[in-house]
C-alpha cells in the first residue's frame, strides 16, 4: 500500500499505517493522499510546452500537492471505499421524510445519452430543441399531478425550491403593495429547512403549535394570521406522517388574510396521482425529484427541487423557463430573476421523466397507495410493542411515527435503538424528528419494499423492542459492533476540527 510513497521525496504520501480493524472483505482503506503521490497519474496526456506570453504574469507557483493514482490503483481505492457504504441497492432505508426508493437503471442510461449529457446550456437554442421539449414534458407531468398553473424547474434541491417559492411569494406581495408583510407562519413539526428558508429571506418566523393529534390546528393558524403575515409554510402530508384534515380551511383562511400558502412537498410520494395539491389551495410547492421521482441520492445530492406555482404566483417564476417556441432567459415584467446559472438540473429532469413515463399516471398512483399501505402495515405490526403517538389520528400516510415511551426505564435511547438496527443489517430510521414527538422514530418504508422485506424488518424491530424491554441494554448502548466503524466521536470532531489531510511531520531520513 505504501509502495508508491517510499523513496519519493516529491510525493504527498506518508505510508499508511496498518490498522487492527476491518475484515478480509472490508479492509481499511488509506486516504488518497497516503496512497498516491504527485508524480503518478491515471490519465495519459502529452506534456506540451507553453510560453508565458498570454499568462499575464500569473503563472502558478504554489505547488498543487494533489495526489495521483494510476487507473488500477484508483479503481481499487474507490471500490474499497464504496464497500463501507450502506445503499438502497443493498438494503432498505426506513428513513422518514427522505423517500429512499428504488433508483431504476434505465434512468441512468437515458441521462447518459449524448443528446442529453453532452449538450451545453449556452449552445444555440435551435440545436437543443429536444432538451426543451423534455423540460416542457416534465413540466406538463408535474403540473398535471399537482393541478397547478406553472412550474419553475431550475431549483437545485428541495431547500433551493423553498427559497424560490418563498421569493416568488415575496415578489407577489411586493407587487400588490404588501411588501411590509414580514411574518411567515411555520408549524413546529416542520422540517428545519422551512424556518431556515424563511429567515434566510428576512422573514420573522412565527411557530404554530401542533394539536394533540399531531396535525395543525386551523383555529391556531387563523389566530396567528394578520396584516403582517406573508405566508404559511406547511408540510402535507405532515412530518408526523398524517394528512392535514383541515388543510382546505387553512388555505382559505390564509388567502382571505392576504397571505400565500407554501407547501413543503417532501412528502408528495404519499399522494402523487391520488390527491392534487392545487385542489387543496396551495400556491407553491417544491417537489424533490430525488425523493418522489427516484433520481438517486448519490450520498447527498445532487437533488432537484422544481416548484409548482398557482395562477397567482405564476408571473413570479424565475428565469429561465420554457414557453411555446423556446427558452425565456431574461426577466421581463414580474419575474424574480435568476436563482442559478443555466437551466437547472437537466440530468435529473431526464431521470425523473423516464421514471414518470415508466410508471404512467396509473403506476404513480399505485406507487403512492403502496407506500401508504406499507407504512400502515409497519405501524400495525409494530404497534404491539412500540408506542404510537397520536394513536387517535387514524391511518398514517407513507410514514409511521413512533416515540420512545416504550423505552422508558430500559436505559436505551432512540439513538441506541437506531444504532442496534445497523447491527441487524438495516440503515437506521429517522431519529428525533419531528421535534414535537419525544425521541421520535420516523419510519418510511416506500413502495419499493416487498412484503417479505417488510416482514423481516418488522421481526427485527419487534425482536429489538422486546430485547430492550427485557433489560438487555448492552446490545443497544454498545451498538454498532458489526459495522465498518463503531460509534464515532463527534464531539472531538467538532472541538478540534480536522477538515483535510495534513502531511504528517516526518522523522529525518538518511539520504538515498
Amino acid at each position, binding site marked *: 500500500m505504501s509502495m508508491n510513497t517510499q523513496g519519493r521525496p516529491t510525493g504527498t504520501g506518508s505510508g499508511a499505517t496498518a490498522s487492527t480493524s476491518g475484515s478480509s472483505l472490508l479492509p481499511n482503506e488509506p486516504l488518497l493522499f497516503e496512497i498516491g503521490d504527485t508524480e503518478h497519474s491515471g490519465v495519459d496526456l502529452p506534456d506540451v510546452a507553453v510560453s508565458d506570453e498570454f499568462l499575464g504574469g500569473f503563472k502558478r507557483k504554489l505547488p498543487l500537492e494533489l495526489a495521483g493514482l494510476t487507473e488500477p490503483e484508483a479503481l481499487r481505492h474507490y471500490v474499497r471505499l464504496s464497500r463501507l457504504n450502506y445503499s438502497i441497492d443493498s438494503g432498505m432505508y426506513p428513513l422518514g421524510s427522505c423517500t429512499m426508493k428504488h433508483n431504476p437503471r434505465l434512468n441512468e442510461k437515458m441521462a447518459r*445519452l449524448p443528446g442529453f449529457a453532452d449538450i451545453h446550456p449556452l449552445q444555440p437554442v435551435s440545436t437543443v430543441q429536444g432538451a426543451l421539449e423534455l423540460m416542457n414534458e416534465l413540466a406538463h407531468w408535474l403540473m398535471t399531478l399537482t393541478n397547478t398553473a406553472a412550474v419553475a424547474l431550475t431549483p437545485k434541491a428541495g431547500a*433551493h425550491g423553498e427559497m424560490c417559492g418563498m421569493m416568488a411569494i415575496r415578489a407577489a406581495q411586493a407587487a400588490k403593495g404588501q411588501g411590509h408583510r414580514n411574518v411567515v407562519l411555520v408549524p413546529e413539526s416542520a422540517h*428545519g429547512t422551512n424556518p*431556515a428558508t424563511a429567515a434566510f429571506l428576512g422573514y420573522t418566523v412565527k411557530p404554530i403549535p401542533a394539536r394533540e393529534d399531531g396535525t395543525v390546528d386551523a383555529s391556531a393558524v387563523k389566530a396567528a394570521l394578520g396584516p403582517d403575515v406573508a405566508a404559511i409554510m406547511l408540510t402535507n402530508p405532515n412530518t408526523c406522517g398524517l394528512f392535514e384534515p383541515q388543510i382546505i380551511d387553512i388555505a382559505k383562511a390564509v388567502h382571505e388574510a392576504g397571505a400565500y400558502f407554501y407547501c413543503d412537498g417532501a412528502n408528495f410520494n404519499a399522494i402523487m396521482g391520488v390527491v392534487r395539491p392545487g385542489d387543496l389551495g396551495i400556491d407553491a410547492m417544491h417537489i424533490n425529484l430525488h425523493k418522489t421521482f427516484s433520481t438517486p441520492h448519490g450520498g447527498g445530492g445532487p437533488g432537484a427541487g422544481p416548484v409548482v406555482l398557482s395562477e397567482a404566483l405564476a408571473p413570479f417564476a424565475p428565469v429561465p423557463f420554457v414557453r411555446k417556441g423556446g427558452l425565456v*432567459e431574461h426577466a421581463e415584467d414580474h419575474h424574480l430573476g435568476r436563482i442559478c446559472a*443555466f437551466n437547472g438540473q437537466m440530468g435529473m429532469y431526464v431521470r425523473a421523466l423516464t421514471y414518470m413515463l415508466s410508471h404512467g399516471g396509473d403506476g404513480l398512483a399505485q406507487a403512492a397507495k403502496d407506500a401508504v399501505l406499507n407504512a400502515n402495515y409497519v405501524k400495525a405490526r409494530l404497534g404491539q410493542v412500540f408506542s404510537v403517538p397520536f394513536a387517535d389520528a387514524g391511518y398514517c400516510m407513507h410514514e409511521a411515527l413512533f416515540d420512545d415511551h416504550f423505552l422508558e426505564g430500559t436505559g436505551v435511547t432512540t439513538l441506541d435503538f437506531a444504532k442496534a438496527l445497523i447491527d441487524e443489517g438495516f440503515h437506521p430510521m429517522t431519529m428525533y424528528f419531528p421535534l414535537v414527538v419525544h425521541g421520535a422514530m420516523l419510519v418510511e418504508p416506500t413502495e419499493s419494499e416487498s412484503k417479505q422485506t417488510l416482514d423481516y424488518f418488522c421481526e427485527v424491530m419487534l425482536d429489538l423492542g422486546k430485547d430492550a424491554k427485557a433489560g438487555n441494554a448492552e446490545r443497544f448502548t454498545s451498538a454498532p459492533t458489526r459495522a465498518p466503524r463503531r460509534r464515532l466521536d463527534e464531539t472531538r470532531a*467538532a472541538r478540534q476540527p480536522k477538515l483535510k489531510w495534513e502531511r504528517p511531520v516526518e522523522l529525518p531520513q538518511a539520504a538515498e
Partner: protein
Amino acid sequence: MRYLPHSAAERADMLAVIGAGSAEALFGAVPKGALLTRPVDLPAHSPEFLVEAHMKALAAKNHAAADGPFFVGAGAYRHHVPATVDHLIQRSEWLTAYTPYQPEVSQGTLQMLFEFQTQVAHLTGMEVANASMYDGSTATAEAVLMARRLTRKDKIILSGGLHPHYRDVVSTYLDNSPNLIPLPASPEGQGDILSQIDDDTAAIVIQTPDFFGHLRDVEKAAEAVHAKGGLLIVVVTEVVSLGLIEAPGALGADIVVCEGQSIGNSLNFGGPYVGLMATRKEFIRQMPGRLCGETVDADGNRGFVLTLSTREQHIRREKATSNICTNSGLCALAFSIHMGLLGEAGLTRLAKLNHANAVKLARMLKTVPGIELLNKSFFNEMTIRLPVPAAPVIELLAKAEVLAGVPVSRLIPNDPKVENLIVLAATELTTDSDIEMLAECLTEALK
C-alpha cells in the same frame, strides 16, 4: 408495474393485518372531494423499450458537443472524462447511498468527502473547503452572504468580469439590495473595482479567468480591499485553469468559489454541477454547507463524520448560516475521482494542453479578416469582436454544425457595447482541424 413488488393477494393480506377495508380507506383523512375518483390525465405505464425509444427520440433532436467543432464555454466546459469515473460513480454503493448522517455505515462517502475537501483546499490554495455546493453561481451568492456575516458590513461590489448569470444570481439572493454594486460588463478586461472600495465594503467579487477570458490581478484586489477591512471573494468558473494559473489563496483571497464541472462532470445542459467553496480556517463557522471531519470511533480507529453541524438548518433552524441541505455529493465524487486520476502531474499537463490549444485558436482567429481579439491574457477562453452583430453569425455557423461560442448578447441583451462579441473556449478536445474549420466558416460568414 415492474418497480412495484406487491401482488394483489399480498396487498389484500396487508390490508387485513391493518384492519382496513380497502386501499382507499387509508386515505380517509383527505377532505371530501379532494381524493381523485379517476386517474390523472396522463399516459399509462409503459415497458422499458418504449420509454427508451421516446427518450432517444428527444435526445436525437439535440446537437451533441461531440458532433462537430465546438467552442462553447462561458462557465461550462467540455472536457474528457475518463471512463473509470463514470463506471465508479454508477456503483450502487455510491449512487444509491443516502447523505452520510449515520457515519458507521457511510465511511465510504465520508472519507471521499474528506479527500475532496483536501483536493479543493490544495487546488485553491486555501486552508479549508466544504463538502460542495449546488454549483458555482449559488456558491458565489452564498459567499457574498458569508462575507456580510463575517464583516457585519453590507456593501458588495461585483466585478464587470463576473459571469452575467452569477451576477444575476447574487442580485436575486440579495433581493436587489441597494448595497449591491454590479459594475458594467468589462469585455476589454478593464476594471475600476478598486476605486469603488470604501469603509462600508463587505466584499468585492472578482472572477479569474473572467467571463471574457482575461486573467485578473488577484493580489492587487486583495491588498485594496483588505486595506478597507473588507474581504476578497475570487470566482473561478474553469477549475482546470488552477493547474497553470496561480492559486487565489496564494494571492490573498478570503473566500474562493469555483464551478467544478470541468473535472469529472458532463455538460448536462447546465446541471447537475458541483460548486466548490474554500476559505480561511478562522471563517469556517460562518461557512455554509456540509463539512466532513476526521475523528476516531469507540475502538480508537480513524473515521470521518459530518461536523460543525451547529451551523446547519437541521440543528439551528431559523438561525442557520444557510438553508442548504442536499448538496452535490455524486458530482463531488466524480470530481474527486477524476482529480485523483489526474494528480498534480496530470492536472498540470491538462492545463498546459488547454492553454496551448487556446493559443492556437487565438493565433488562428487573428488571421480572420475583420476579427479583433480583445485578450492580452487568457487561459483557455477569449473574446473576439466582429464587425457585425454576433448572434446571427453564431446561428449561421450552427447550421454548418460549427458551434462557435457564445454571443455575449445572449447573456447581456440590449447592450450595443457587447452586441458584436463572441466568447470562445478551447479545451484538450479541440483539434487543429476544428480550429481551421472555425476560421474558414467565420471568414466565409464575414465576407
